[in-house]
């Protein structure tokens, strides 16, 4: 029965083809979201010097804050091209915490809020931080998807055949492991 054989081979080939494509697609999107995190970190790092000079007048006696901010910026510059998501996220977290006291000062200083440039910078930083957060979340979801495909039967056979390995992914930070309860 050569017809049945041909059909069977075609079905298997189709399956291989589709799983292979799925894996490649997810992998590309994982890379893209890592890159997005890197891009946003670069933007954050570029915004820092301007921010420092715009708030310096209001925070004369707080050299330690600015030092930590500069250090955090350097840390970003160091890892930004590494493509290692965990390092990127750690650097971004460090910047965010270094950034917190400045935000506090900004929120309690009406003169600073009235001056346009600082507000603009704060908005930009908030946006880049949001973008990092959403990219990180996408990265976590995609990695989970991908890893499930590489271990569950029968897609794991295809993964093994073409040498798709598990992705390391990210540590899910505290507080995001609890999904909000949804009821209708």
């Amino acid at each position, binding site marked *: 029965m050569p017809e049945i054989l041909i059909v069977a081979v075609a079905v298997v080939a189709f399956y291989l083809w589709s799983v292979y494509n799925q894996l490649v697609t997810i992998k590309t999107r994982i890379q893209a979201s890592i890159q997005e995190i890197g891009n946003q970190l670069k933007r954050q790092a570029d915004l820092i010097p301007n921010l420092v000079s715009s708030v310096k007048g209001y925070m004369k006696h707080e050299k330690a804050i600015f030092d930590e901010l500069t250090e955090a910026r350097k840390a970003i510059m160091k890892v930004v091209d590494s493509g290692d998501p965990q390092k990127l996220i750690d650097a971004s977290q460090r910047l965010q915490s270094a950034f917190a006291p400045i935000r506090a000062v900004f929120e309690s200083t009406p003169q600073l809020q009235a001056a346009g440039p600082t507000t603009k910078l704060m*908005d930009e930083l908030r946006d880049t931080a949001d973008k990092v957060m959403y990219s990180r979340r996408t990265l976590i979801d995609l990695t989970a998807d991908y890893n499930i495909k590489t271990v569950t039967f029968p897609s794991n056979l295809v993964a093994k055949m073409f040498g798709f390995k598990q992705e390391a992914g990210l540590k899910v930070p505290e507080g995001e492991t609890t999904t*909000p309860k949804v*009821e209708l």
Partner: protein
Amino acid sequence: MVNVYEQQDSNKRRSLLVVAFFVVFVVLISWVFAQVLDYGSGLMGLALIFAGIISFGSYWWGDKMILAISGARPANKKEDFNFFTVAENLAMASQIPMPKLYVIDDSAPNAFATGRDPKHAVICATTGLLQKLDRTELEGVVAHELSHIRNYDIRLMSLVTILVGMITLLVDWLLRSARLSDGNRERGNLGAILLVAGLISALLSPLIAQLIQLAISRRREFLADSSAVLLTKYPEGLARALAKINADKEPLEAANKATAHLYIVNPFKGQKSIGMFANLFNTHPPIEERIKILKEMV
């Protein structure tokens, strides 16, 4: 709970149904009209073509029509920084293309989404909304609108807006011509009966139209609220935004009967408690209930 895919399918199905309903309705009205005024069946053919063109037009250009009715301008990143970037981020997170953004110049805070599918979608906010909400709250509102887009609520809702608007116009026109033809009395008994039938259908149809709005609008608000929370993972933001929008008593001038059901919160605030029918025809679930459900998700 209905899942997103079921909701998408049901919305696509209902969109077709609404169009079919509209075509049948227009042909029926034209039939009554032709009987009363002694026109041939040519009128029905004309009505069929008319209904077809209108339906296609509202599918293809529904978003543009609605934006034009509401008097919206395109948003840009410089002037509407938070709106623009929040939409950009959430679109990325929900993995749909970034929708086009529009702003209505009105101090009453409100927002809606329209379009025919995620690739041709629009989110529109009032300047009042952009000024009164902080970024976190705005994120909740934009996520709610994005959920409408992803669920294909926008297709159904835009079609309904335009077609219901058309029915209302048609009925207005019919009533007026019925009143005009009341003058000549030389018609027989049949004419009078058909005239009555015409009048009844003319009176009933706004009611039917309103009921469509009701039937398709309430549960999808709840669903969009919960999908929004899945996106932002922060129910508090949307809850605060809804409370703020609700506390604002200013009615939105850009909204009318046909577009009211599009908005995140009923734009005719304060006017809703008039008469016993008010609650029956309310297109939105009560805000308090929505906030309560959101608070329970925390």
